[in-house]
């Protein structure tokens, strides 16, 4: 993989060179402890020292509410005029979130390609950036602390500079545009990168064992753990909304006031919502909170492994950070493994 060095003092100028490649979206501070991806007027508002944003990148490629097409009583269903979403450059994306996008690619691709997703995905350039984990991060355990693909450029902090990995042809165009700011990798950079690697590894405070977890989940299908977690869960769906890989959606038709036309839309849904598995006639396949939260864990840690060979959890820690009642995925898994009893 092609690599170059970007001195830190040149970063603002480098970001400036990215602007012709699309609308720039960067991490910004939105409150004392919260960050979000968004637009900035002033490059100094970029907050590179963030650990996680509230919402992951899915908000760009799979909108919280999205119009799918219009309908009209006389003529039926018609696709809306091709939405020309601007090209975007999303800067400062951490490895877990890049893995999140790669997992969404699996879901929205396949036999039936979701065009709403892929159109936006193809217009989003990803400039990744490495990070130091906090106490909630467990991406080393999920194997998502490092990315090899899924970015156009990836910046690793090696002290006075960034080591820039070039992942795509578009990424190569980007560094060519900023050529004067970059230099070749030298011996001291190689050593600095290795030190950074060790520093990142040693910073992890949370670890969870995912090996054999699918089998253990089958063994613990009737475990008391689910009743206790279900008792705590509010079914609010926050964990689904902030999860980089939760992709469920609900479809609904919205009518214009005149009644003759409207639009079909979809919005983020959560398998924790009470009506998620409800069918016409009133039968609910998961009427209680225990079965719903168990289903969420099973899909992430068990079902996805069967379907795609890996869990769909990327270890970002958001579900734990934002859970209103403090349900901790790491503790739940450790309980299932009988490593702890809460």
């Amino acid at each position: 993989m092609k690599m170059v060095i970007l001195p830190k003092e040149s970063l603002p100028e480098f970001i400036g060179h990215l602007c012709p490649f699309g609308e720039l979206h960067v991490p910004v501070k939105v409150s004392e402890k919260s960050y979000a991806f968004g637009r900035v007027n002033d490059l100094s508002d970029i907050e590179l020292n963030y650990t996680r944003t509230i919402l992951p990148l899915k908000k760009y490629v799979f909108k919280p509410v999205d119009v799918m097409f219009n309908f009209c009583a006389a003529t039926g269903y018609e696709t809306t005029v091709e939405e020309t979403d601007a090209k975007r450059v999303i800067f400062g994306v951490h490895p877990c979130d890049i893995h999140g996008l790669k997992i969404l690619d699996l879901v929205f691709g396949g036999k039936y390609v979701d065009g709403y997703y892929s159109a936006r995905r193809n217009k989003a350039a990803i400039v990744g950036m490495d990070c130091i984990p906090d106490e909630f991060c467990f991406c080393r355990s999920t194997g998502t602390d490092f990315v090899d693909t899924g970015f156009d450029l990836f910046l690793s902090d090696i002290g006075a500079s960034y080591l820039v990995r070039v992942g795509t042809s578009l990424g190569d165009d980007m560094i060519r545009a900023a050529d004067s700011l970059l230099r070749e990798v030298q011996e001291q950079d190689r050593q600095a990168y290795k030190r950074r690697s060790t520093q990142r590894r040693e910073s992890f405070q949370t670890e969870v064992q995912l090996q054999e977890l699918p089998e253990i989940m089958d063994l613990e299908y009737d475990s008391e753990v689910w009743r206790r977690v279900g008792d705590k869960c509010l079914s609010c769906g926050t964990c689904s909304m902030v999860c980089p890989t939760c992709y469920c959606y609900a479809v609904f038709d919205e009518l214009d006031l005149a009644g003759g036309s409207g639009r079909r839309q979809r919005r983020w849904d959560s398998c924790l919502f009470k009506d998620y598995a409800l069918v016409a006639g009133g039968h609910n396949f998961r009427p209680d909170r225990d079965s719903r939260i168990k289903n969420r864990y099973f899909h992430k840690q068990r079902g996805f492994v069967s379907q795609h060979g890996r869990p769909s959890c990327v270890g970002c820690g958001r579900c734990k950070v934002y859970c209103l009642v403090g349900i901790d995925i790491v503790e739940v898994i450790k309980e299932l493994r009988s490593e702890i009893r809460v």
Partner: protein
Amino acid sequence: MCDHQSHATHNNPYLPHPARIIRTLPQIQDHQLFQIRFEDEDMARGFAYRPGQFVMLSVIGTGEAPFSISSAPTHPGVIELCVRRIGHVTKALFALPPNALVGIRGPYGNGFPVERLQQNNLLLVAGGLGMAPLRSLLWYALDNRSKFKDVILMYGGRNPDEMLFKYELLNLIDRTDVQCLLTVDRDDSGIWKAHKGVVTMLFDHVELDPNSTYAAVCGPDVMFRFVLNELLERGFSKDRMLMSLERNMQCGVGKCGHCMIGYKYTCLDGPIFTYWDAINLQEMI
């Protein structure tokens, strides 16, 4: 299929194709058979599907829901959906005027593995609305009669007034290349000439070779359990017992998540599952 609309439709799996309800045939209380024809002639004639597959039907302004196809692919031109008025989409569907424009997309799901079923005896066991998907397989087998060995239908309803496709099925009783066993739990009218009693009672009337027979079972939960037990007792392999499952479906193409059971999407991996699938995956039945 080369105009702009068709092209856009082709690229968007969520966009329904325009179709007309060309006939409604009342069945029993709150159940109707809807005959639907695509407006696009190529689609109307060329809509290929397997028995057991389903379509997503949209009622303009109300919403969309999944329905198993009740017609057989051996009768092209129209598709038939046997629908119970039970939710908001079906309520609106029943209220549509003649020749109403609706949206259809599909077919979706795996359908019955008809290639695997051929050269075998076929036992269809239905209860209530379970006849809807099995009718497709029944006519497929009767229209490809030489490809199957014995074809047996067992269908049970609560009473004669609650039998779907009643006259069509009664007409099969004297047909010699199919064994059509119909039963009702109760008959207050006294005019019912076929069997009386629960559907499992019909097993006393047939000879079944479990090694050369596939059973397709569809019906209410209670019936499922009794029929599956009956088949197990007769030595059927769990792989030779097929069932059609129902779940909340909002996309039909394995994205929206609602029909997920463990790691199977009912809409992609089902709705037809073997009994082995069903017991191997918690939560399925």
